[in-house]
């Protein structure tokens, strides 16, 4: 009941005219930027960070929530109408959605996706309301060794669950950790990797790293390989669904969240795995097997619902543990740090207005998203025709605005370009970008917790595994590390049986 009352207070915050306005602006901006080809949710959030610099934290995060959901929805529009998704989570939407659009059922595909997002987001956010305070309560007592264990888990998960190559994930993580080391040591004030430079003593701002890796790196990478003739989007009218379609899809909408939510909450790559799982599930349960691959509407509805719910799941770990499980959450965590707010178990006690206002605005944002996106879909589809030179020039331009607005220093723009070149190289050689961003954000925090834990135990390493919680987390870490070996052993066993 307590959570319910807090949520009602949250609605009081979210429904003030000004916050309602921020939510609407966030949803519109997020969708518009997310629809643009080549821009995924993480880049959208990173590029739109500076828009919120002048706002109070509550307004800023309400806007962010809208941007997050809007960008995810925008991404699926792109993959349905263009069929060349850049964001891994939107790949599944293209598998059935694009054949549907080609067959003249683009309007239905967009409607299935939009309602799927709405349903998944609603169920996911309700689960968030139910679970987050409980998780926060459980986590209030955890100490430095436990935090360190969670962060080690995040590092290992992000390098070994995602991507095809662990060693490349690890390289990316270490690059991030190195960038995180730059500046004054938080505990002793020692200069590290500053090479005597005063500017570097403050450290490299996380926002600059995120914008550099996500936006500049991507723009340069695309510039090097720009398609001579961009793919033609399929024209589409106002999304709608016939009764027969609704009959086929409502179960898929309902199933999606329960696949998406848990995967969002754990550091396993956000929407990538659950959208695929949902796709496979829907395919197995479908009565229209012959349609799969040629445009089965369940294959759009289920995965989109799962993706949206996974975004809500992501927020559980981000708000209660301060643990970002996706690139978007990582950027949002950076935004929290900009305001001097540390997400974690104490957030619900210290900033109840902010947290519950944010959660309530998720509901508001979802309704706005549905109400705006169904009528506006033809407009969004027009954005897909934007000339590519303008698109990527715009990305560079807004990245520069964001980095410059952080501190008004020209040197920040130079650092931004250098980090962008690193991001370019990482894309060229298949180093995933997410571990680097997680490394920059969690690295300094992990070091602090490690040193605090060792101070408490007077330098004894056993202090790191002194609690049942940390032991459990390390067990999961070992399991993750051993998984490839286990998997290698499995087929052999099956063959023997």
């Amino acid at each position, binding site marked *: 009941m307590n959570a319910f009352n807090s949520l009602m207070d949250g609605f009081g915050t979210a429904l003030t005219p000004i916050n309602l306005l921020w939510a609407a602006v966030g949803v519109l901006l997020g969708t518009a930027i997310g629809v643009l*080809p*080549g821009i995924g949710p993480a880049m959208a959030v990173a590029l739109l960070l*500076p*828009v919120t*610099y*002048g*706002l109070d934290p509550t307004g800023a995060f309400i806007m962010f929530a809208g941007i997050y959901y809007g960008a995810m929805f925008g991404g699926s529009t*792109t993959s349905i109408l263009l069929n*060349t*998704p*850049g964001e891994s989570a939107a790949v599944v939407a293209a598998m059935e959605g694009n054949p549907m659009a080609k067959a003249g059922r683009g309007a239905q595909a967009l409607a299935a996706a939009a309602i799927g997002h709405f349903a998944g987001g609603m169920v996911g956010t309700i689960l968030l309301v139910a679970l987050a305070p409980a998780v926060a309560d459980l986590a209030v007592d955890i100490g430095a060794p436990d935090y360190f264990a969670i962060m080690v888990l995040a590092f290992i998960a992000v390098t070994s669950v995602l991507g095809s*190559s662990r*060693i*490349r994930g*690890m*390289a990316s993580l*270490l*690059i991030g*950790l190195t960038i995180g*080391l730059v500046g004054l*040591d938080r*505990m*002793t004030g*020692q200069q*590290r*990797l500053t090479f005597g430079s005063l500017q570097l003593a403050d450290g490299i701002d996380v926002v600059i790293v995120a914008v550099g890796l996500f936006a500049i790196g991507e723009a*340069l990478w*695309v*510039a*090097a*390989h*720009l*398609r001579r003739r*961009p793919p033609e989007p399929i024209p589409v009218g106002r999304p709608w669904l016939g009764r027969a379609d609704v009959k086929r899809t409502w179960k898929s909408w309902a199933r999606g969240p329960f696949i998406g939510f848990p995967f969002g909450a754990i550091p396993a790559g956000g929407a990538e795995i659950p959208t695929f799982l949902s796709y496979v599930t829907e395919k197995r349960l479908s009565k229209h097997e012959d349609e799969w691959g040629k445009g089965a509407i369940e294959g759009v509805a289920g995965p989109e619902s799962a993706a949206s719910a996974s975004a809500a799941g992501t927020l559980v770990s981000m708000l209660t543990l301060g643990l970002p499980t996706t690139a978007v959450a990582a950027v949002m965590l950076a935004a929290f740090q900009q305001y001097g707010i540390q997400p974690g178990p104490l957030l619900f006690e210290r900033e109840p207005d902010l947290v519950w206002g944010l959660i309530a605005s998720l509901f508001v944002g979802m309704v706005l998203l549905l109400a705006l996106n169904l009528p506006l879909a033809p407009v969004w589809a027009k954005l897909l025709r934007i000339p*590519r*030179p*303008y*698109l*990527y*020039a*715009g990305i*560079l*331009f807004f990245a*520069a*605005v964001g980095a410059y*607005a952080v501190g*008004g220093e*020209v040197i920040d*723009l130079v650092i931004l*370009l250098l980090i962008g070149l690193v991001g370019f190289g990482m894309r*060229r*050689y*298949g*180093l995933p970008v997410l571990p680097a961003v997680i490394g920059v954000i969690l690295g300094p925090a992990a*070091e602090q917790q*490690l040193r605090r834990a*060792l*101070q408490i135990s*007077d*330098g004894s390493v056993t202090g790191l595994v002194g609690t049942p919680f940390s032991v459990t987390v390390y067990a999961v870490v070992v399991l993750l590390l051993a998984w490839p070996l286990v998997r290698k052993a499995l087929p052999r066993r099956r063959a023997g049986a």
Partner: protein
Amino acid sequence: MTTPTTDPSPASPSPAPAAGRRSWLRDHSELGVCVLLSVLGVLVLADALTMDVDITQRGPVGPRTVPVVVGAGLLVVAALLALDVLRGGRGQAETGEDVDLSEPADWRTVLLLAGVFLGAAVLIDPLGFPAAGALLFWGAAFALGSRRFDRDPLIAAVVSLVTYAVFDKLLGVPLPGGPLMGVL
């Protein structure tokens, strides 16, 4: 499995003649990543080991420990990655909506973009944000192949001015107007 040599240098034994060696290098350009990672590792280690920690050390773990671990990790990962590349492992280049990997990389555009970006960064202080931003947008669009001399500068100017107005006046994020805004 082939027997990999752990030496990433171009001098490693190659049975092919000069032309073959060049294509071998191109095939194994990822070894450059290993070189960069190990350079970074050495840099981090050197910085950590030359740190003067006697006075400031508080608690059993000083400011040196984590950099040493990270630096050593970079060296280990560089070696492992080199091993992987020599065994035939390749990092997969990222794909995307507008990415066409079938053609070789267009380095001219990338360099031009980087140059335009740096130029605009330098010009922000003397010219102010609206002018430097417009140059950045136009220059980037030009580098990316847009040649509409009637339309491009106009769009660049509008984007830059509107952004400046929205951020500086509406959102309360200060950007320098420069002499141009002083006149207007």
